[in-house]
């Protein structure tokens, strides 16, 4: 995903004179082409995220469209107040990109995990919070964010994630897309972990369980029209996010259901439990340990379906 981001932001820099790219001293060689295309609009802001965020707000208030890129915890919780005051309160149209989100950098330890970012940032008025499932969704959302009159936070993965969307149709911010249709259960997720969900849906189909898998594209705004339709079709939902179980997608869906369709849907949240992770391995290992890989998700899906039958 980060390669798709680098390619797209470079294309955007050539297309429009108002796009600037601010890096927090990461992305070695990643932005060489951007620097060739628009050297005066690339800024390595150093390991100084508070300044970078406020600086971006200042640029945006002067009519530019700054895009900030660094590792997720450093561009979110590290400089939360600068996001809240400089970006969100001012409605400065900054695009904040957190790379290596969720458990992408699992082996680097809790300092580099981002399991709270969506929960925290979706509380800020006027800030969209998106989490593309693949490079196609990323490109569509990035382009839309740069045309929006308000700021956007985008959490992305690292590299090598599979492409999950069949084409670009219908992709964007606040737009849900069906990745696989089904009839027994609905699984709604965000981010590249939906690749594991699709494998799990395929696995459980062998035992006759039909699961629909949806990429919601983010947690704010939610696609209310789509969700309303799903309420009619499915009484049982699963939410899936590579993020803490508190406050993220699952919580956002529970809030939406409570506000709009109380008592209609049973929802189970799948995500990282409310702990810091210390026994480390790579993303594949950690997903497996937490039951968030295809196999673990298959068990959760089957178990949730079984609960209904008891």
């Amino acid at each position, binding site marked *: 995903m980060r390669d798709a981001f680098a390619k797209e932001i470079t294309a955007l820099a050539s297309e429009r004179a108002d796009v*600037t790219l601010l890096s927090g001293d990461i992305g070695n060689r990643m932005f060489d082409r951007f620097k060739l295309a628009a050297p*005066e*609009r690339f*800024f390595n*802001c*150093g390991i*100084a995220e*508070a*300044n*970078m*965020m*406020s*600086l*971006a*707000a*200042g*640029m*945006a*208030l*002067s*009519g*530019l469209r*700054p895009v900030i890129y660094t590792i997720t915890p450093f561009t979110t919780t590290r400089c939360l*107040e*600068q996001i809240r*005051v*400089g970006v969100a*309160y*001012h*409605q400065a149209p900054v695009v904040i990109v957190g790379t290596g989100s969720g458990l992408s950098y699992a082996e680097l330890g809790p300092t580099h995990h981002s399991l709270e970012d969506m929960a925290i940032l979706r509380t800020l008025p006027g800030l969209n919070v998106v989490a593309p499932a693949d490079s196609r969704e990323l490109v569509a959302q990035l382009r839309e964010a740069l045309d929006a009159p308000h700021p956007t936070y985008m959490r992305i993965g690292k590299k090598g994630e599979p492409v999950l969307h069949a084409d670009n149709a219908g992709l964007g911010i606040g737009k849900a897309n069906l990745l696989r249709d089904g009839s027994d259960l609905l699984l709604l997720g965000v981010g590249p972990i939906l690749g594991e969900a699709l494998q799990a849906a395929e696995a459980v189909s062998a035992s006759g369980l039909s699961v629909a898998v949806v990429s919601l594209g983010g947690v704010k705004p939610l696609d209310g029209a789509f969700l309303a339709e799903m309420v009619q079709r499915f009484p049982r939902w699963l939410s899936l996010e590579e993020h803490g179980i508190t406050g993220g997608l699952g919580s956002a869906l529970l809030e939406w259901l409570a506000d709009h369709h109380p008592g209609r849907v049973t929802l189970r949240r799948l995500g990282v439990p409310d702990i810091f992770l210390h026994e480390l391995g790579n993303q594949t290992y950690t997903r497996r340990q937490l039951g968030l890989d295809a196999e673990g998700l298959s068990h959760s899906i089957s178990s949730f379906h079984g609960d209904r039958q008891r």
Partner: protein
Amino acid sequence: MITTPPAELSLTACNLRRRLVTTSAEAKIPHLGSCLSCVELLVQLYWRELRIDPEAPDDPDRDRFLLSKGHGAPILFQVLGERGFFPLSELANFGKAGSVFHEHPPKPGYIPGVEAATGSLGHGLPMALGMALAARIQQRPSRCYALMSDGECNEGSIWESAMLAATQKVHTLTAIVDFNKWQATGRSQDVMALDPLAQKWEAFGWHAQEIDGHDFGAIERALTAARRETERPSVIVAHTVKGKGVSFMEDDNNWHYRTPNPEELAAALSELELV
């Protein structure tokens, strides 16, 4: 820019102080000491330095002034009203429920002339840096100014910003420190080792000047020297007196939070008539 002789600037400063202490007393608005210490700096900026037009407050080529020490909003509002950004009569709502005129500047769009919401310290300078870089990219003539407090220099973001501004050679950025030697609960030098403040900025790659922040001539010379810089960002460390202009408020940090009672207001106004 309008040309006003220094004697008139002094009169303007005196009038602003009179209205400031009156408003503080009537609306119970604190930070009086912090406002009084930067009156001459603001008057020199708004009447002599900034290329701004109250009739065209959104002109993209305008200079930007950010009150990074947002708790100085009560004096900024008086300055903007006096300078014609809005009718002075609007300040009658200062501190009233539902008014936009309260203790800190709101985001742009609510009070003409306000460039950024500040109040949480350490935001204004980096935002001004972003605006200065934007002007460079957009090839606009705008210069950017940020007025900070000495206490604000406790914030790490100020020094993050200082390093990047020097790296980027943003010579169109001028920072001013209203160095009144106090912060909320103590002498600034006792709370954090600020001294030697000007040398710190210099070590961070800035063109640093130290002046008497109540001397219009000194402020003008320093701003002119800053404008002539072609490589480095500039900082003016302005030595000031907290509570300046009212003898019983000067260098008394109680006036960070206190507001004058009717007797104190009368005494303050009688002193301010003598100027």
